[in-house]
């Protein structure tokens, strides 16, 4: 269980959340790993931190247009530009997706904790973690629009809790 297993969790949870909460079917366009960060982006990115025996970050990012469409679907109100409601909806979608991935991973990694979501909106911004960790990136198609779900997860060697077993390190800090 490494990159492929994380991809599997991301795919299953994202498709379930989008179908249940948004009534949207999604399909995987491509899967990749990138080191350090994911380059420049435009639109909306919602970040949720994970802490515990393993730590990292999950990010959902998409264009402003798709963020408005998702918020409109979620709140049954039409949004044509990004405002507080759209940012809040994106933060909650990220919270639910990353939260459910976290719950799935806890079976093998032990108890993990979630941060409060942070949402970024703008042009030409980049997200990256300190250090050179590998990000698992899954690109989805949602009704002709693409969005990314990215996760970086590393073992916290200073944490006292022993995982419930079986999860090989995705990436160890050298």
């Amino acid at each position, binding site marked *: 269980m490494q990159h492929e297993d994380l991809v599997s969790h991301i795919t299953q949870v994202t498709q*379930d*959340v989008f179908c*249940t*909460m948004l009534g949207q079917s999604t399909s995987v366009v491509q899967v990749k790993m990138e080191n350090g960060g994911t380059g420049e982006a435009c639109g909306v990115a919602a970040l949720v931190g994970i802490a515990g025996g393993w730590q990292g970050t999950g990010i959902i990012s998409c264009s402003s247009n798709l963020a408005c469409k998702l*918020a409109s679907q*979620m*709140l*049954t109100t039409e949004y044509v530009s990004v405002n*507080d*409601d759209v940012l*809040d*909806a994106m*933060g*909650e979608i990220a*919270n*639910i997706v990353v*939260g*459910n991935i*976290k*719950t799935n991973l*806890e079976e093998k990694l032990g*108890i993990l904790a*979630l941060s*409060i979501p942070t949402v970024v909106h703008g042009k030409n911004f980049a997200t990256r973690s300190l250090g050179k960790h590998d990000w698992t990136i899954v690109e989805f198609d949602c009704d002709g629009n693409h969005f990314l779900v990215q996760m970086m997860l590393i073992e916290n060697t200073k944490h006292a809790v022993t995982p419930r077993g079986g999860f090989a390190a995705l990436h160890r800090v050298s």
Partner: protein
Amino acid sequence: MGLDVLIVDDSAAIRKILQRVLVQADVQLGSVLEASDGKEALDKLKDTKVNLILSDINMPNMDGLEFLTHLKAIPEHKDVPVVMITTEGGQAKVMEAVNLGAVGYVRKPFTADQIKEKLVGII
């Protein structure tokens, strides 16, 4: 007399969705109050009573489990049914919430029908 409900969630989107579900549910709805964390919820309950509380767990300032602990220590509110609606699906969190007095637990993502079914069992 309608059902007075308090929705506690730091996400305005979730509060709006739950309010919509309540309006659509087959219950006679009274007032619907909102709070963005446990602390704000306790403040609102200082001068009002409700018949049902729907609460998230992960929230800033005061999370849902701490809110539940404080709530159960207040005589006039200790018997109000509390349903946790949260992304926290781990068995440990569920048991913690139940042990603190939660009468129901719904994991996000949820459908409107899941919330309605839960309400039928409680009201």
